[in-house]
């Protein structure tokens, strides 16, 4: 036998073949139906918001890595997810400079300050959105009717607003179903909500396309289905009980399920692997807490929508859930905590 170079590695010498990159890429693929539908529903405005958010996240990540003398991590696709998710939570006519700022905060504050991928306590996209909500409360609640005739011909003036100038808000904005309910007591048809035939944030309107993406991820085993199921079941049961007690005061559970950002939040944001618990029981508790918070904020809070805060609070307690809820280790009789 000739002289040969032997490769040495530690066991196991086989690997399943998944990688962080593959998971992240598939999440991006799963977000495509919702993103494409939002562009179809809201036109170029929505497309620009989404693109700006993604570009902003990628740029921020790249520049911060370079400043910290680290290898740039933009190639792992996770910044693209943050950008898409951020864009999808914003109104379709959100000024682009604000969108860009949101991306900077999402990556800079929500992810990089905590140590980058794997170390973020909160879902970075929601951190970005929370900053924008605090900074621009008017712009972030200015909506735009879906399927308007000129959505592919003209850009809304607000989208191209000059930075730090108050955007001009004109009469095309339509109320979202949740704010209509909250402030005017009007509920929409659940079927219209599910299909996305109503106004709302860029990607929050079509539950069907969001669920499609979610099902794809569950099928590929890249998503813990227990999280969305626990959240949605809690919202349905909790608001169902209230509706049963007083159907005039409280909206129907189907309306609660398909309106606002719940579907996007439950399927794509609360499922952020890094910021959610790790055990099966842990994620169910986490989902129940988020679902209950959504109902509480929506029905008794001062805001029409509560998904963002509910998930951020869920993220905050998730390390504590992991400490309290552990699998019983084989051969031990007690759960050690």
């Amino acid at each position: 036998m000739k002289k040969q170079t032997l490769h040495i590695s530690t066991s196991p010498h086989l690997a399943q073949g998944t990688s962080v990159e593959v998971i992240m890429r598939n999440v991006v693929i799963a977000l495509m139906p919702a993103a494409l539908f939002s562009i179809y529903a809201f036109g170029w405005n929505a497309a620009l918001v989404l693109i700006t958010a993604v570009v902003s996240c990628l740029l921020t990540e790249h520049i911060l890595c370079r400043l910290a003398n680290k290898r740039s991590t933009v190639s792992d696709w996770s910044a693209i997810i943050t950008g898409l998710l951020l864009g999808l939570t914003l109104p379709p006519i959100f000024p682009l400079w604000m969108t860009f700022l949101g991306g900077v905060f999402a990556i800079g504050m929500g992810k990089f300050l905590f140590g980058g991928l794997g170390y973020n306590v909160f879902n970075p996209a929601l951190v970005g959105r929370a900053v924008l909500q605090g900074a621009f409360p008017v712009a972030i609640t200015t909506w735009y009717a879906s399927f308007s005739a000129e959505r592919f011909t003209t850009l809304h003036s607000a989208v191209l607003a000059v930075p730090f100038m108050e955007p001009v808000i004109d009469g095309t904005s339509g109320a979202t179903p949740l704010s209509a309910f909250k402030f005017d007591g009007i509920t929409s048809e659940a079927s219209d909500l599910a299909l996305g035939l109503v106004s709302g944030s860029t990607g929050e309107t079509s539950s069907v396309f969001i669920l499609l993406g979610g099902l794809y991820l569950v099928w590929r085993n890249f998503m813990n289905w227990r999280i969305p199921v626990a959240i949605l079941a809690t919202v349905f049961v909790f608001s169902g009980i209230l509706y049963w007690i007083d159907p005039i005061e409280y909206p129907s559970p189907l309306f609660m399920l398909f309106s606002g950002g719940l579907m996007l939040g439950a399927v794509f944001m609360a499922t952020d692997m890094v910021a959610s618990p790790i055990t099966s029981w842990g994620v169910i508790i986490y989902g129940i807490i988020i679902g209950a918070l959504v109902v509480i904020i929506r029905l008794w809070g001062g805001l029409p929508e509560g998904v963002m805060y509910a998930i951020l609070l869920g993220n905050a307690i998730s390390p504590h859930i992991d400490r309290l809820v552990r699998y019983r280790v084989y051969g031990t009789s007690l759960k050690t905590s």
Partner: protein
Amino acid sequence: MKTAKQTFKHGIHPPENKEETNGLPIRQFSFAPLIILPLAQHIGAPSKLVIREGQEVVRGQILAESDGYLSVPLHAPVSGLVKKIAYVPTISGKMTTGIYLEPFPSSTQETLEGEAIDIDSASPEEILIGIQQAGIVGLGGAAFPTHAKLKIPDGKHCDTLIINGIECEPYLTTDHRVMLEQSDDIFLGIKYLMKATGAKRTIIGIEANKQDAADLLRERLPKNEAISVEVVPVKYPQGAEKMLITALLGKEVPSRGLPIDVNAVVVNVATTAEIGRLLPHGRGIQERVITITGPGVKKKGNYLIPIGTPLRYVLEQVGVDESVSEVYMGGPMMGVAVANLDISIVKGTSGIVVFNKEQIEQAPQVYPCIKCGACVDACPLSLNPSKLGILAKFESYEKMAEEYHLMDCFECGSCSYVCPSHIPLVQYFRLSKSIVRKRKVA
């Protein structure tokens, strides 16, 4: 008694890759021109030399005797001349004392026999001594002296003897072939083992991918003996003692405990066959069945190879591709990559797997843990490898051991296998465990 669960919690399903060799009968390997025998082939004290350089020895003769209770003798696998006694390379990279034995050209399979252990007249203690004298260690890969494992501690008793025919490592088919070809030896071995341990019944555990072996053993089950064959689902690491006990008995071995704590003793099926073959003649172990396989091997198969045969000679005989670049001893999940082809086959070698360049992943990029939980849902002991991995990075070894049951980990590698971030978790745990052990001793 609780009913059997038929499997354990979690676990993984790596590709089995057994079909290339599981149909190939065991074939005798020729004697290498030089046999190299390290004295430390088992867990415990290395065997103590009883021969000199330049001495002529006969096949089956004791070359080194057991040095204390946790030790076994070493027998000559071939008649020949002791060329020298010197340091020999081993798979761990350490050099240990060993024997260079040059076979006589006229060497045959004839062998020297010692004191026979008669199954009907021997006492349990005599059987244990016989097993030790035969140099038998766990042939599944652990190489723990079998007589020590069979010794029931005071105050305990053994109800169930479990014969481990799971062979959950991908690629390996030695136990499968042994079950198909050596059923008489296995049943005789079980008789010795039941007598030695006082077990009331025996269960032979076999994974569902070896249904033919299960059928054959069931057909040949000796009458009037409490032996049964149980087929369990294919899942890695089903062959680990604790996992097999849970699958067959529905009980969990206590943390840091042994099978005897749930009144069971687990013995590998090839070890059992060896006991049944050697004890009636008072022989010592001289050779073992090894699967040689993998994409890099030309003549794949199951071979009966003399202990001490140099790996280089083995690979030359079976033919390996020019591009061979990774050789494992053992299976691909828990086996060790070979750095030096001059090491030799030892009693614990269950397989040799050769990968080509194409199969070897170029060291994949390691990402931070994204807490996906794949490892948590893979760990057969329900440990939290994700948390353990993070703690290892922070060198919090005591916390790992005390709060997160690090010392229970038996390094099956399921966590590393599923990790999408390619974190070498099991390697972290191996290191952490050895550090914890050292600190405890210090």
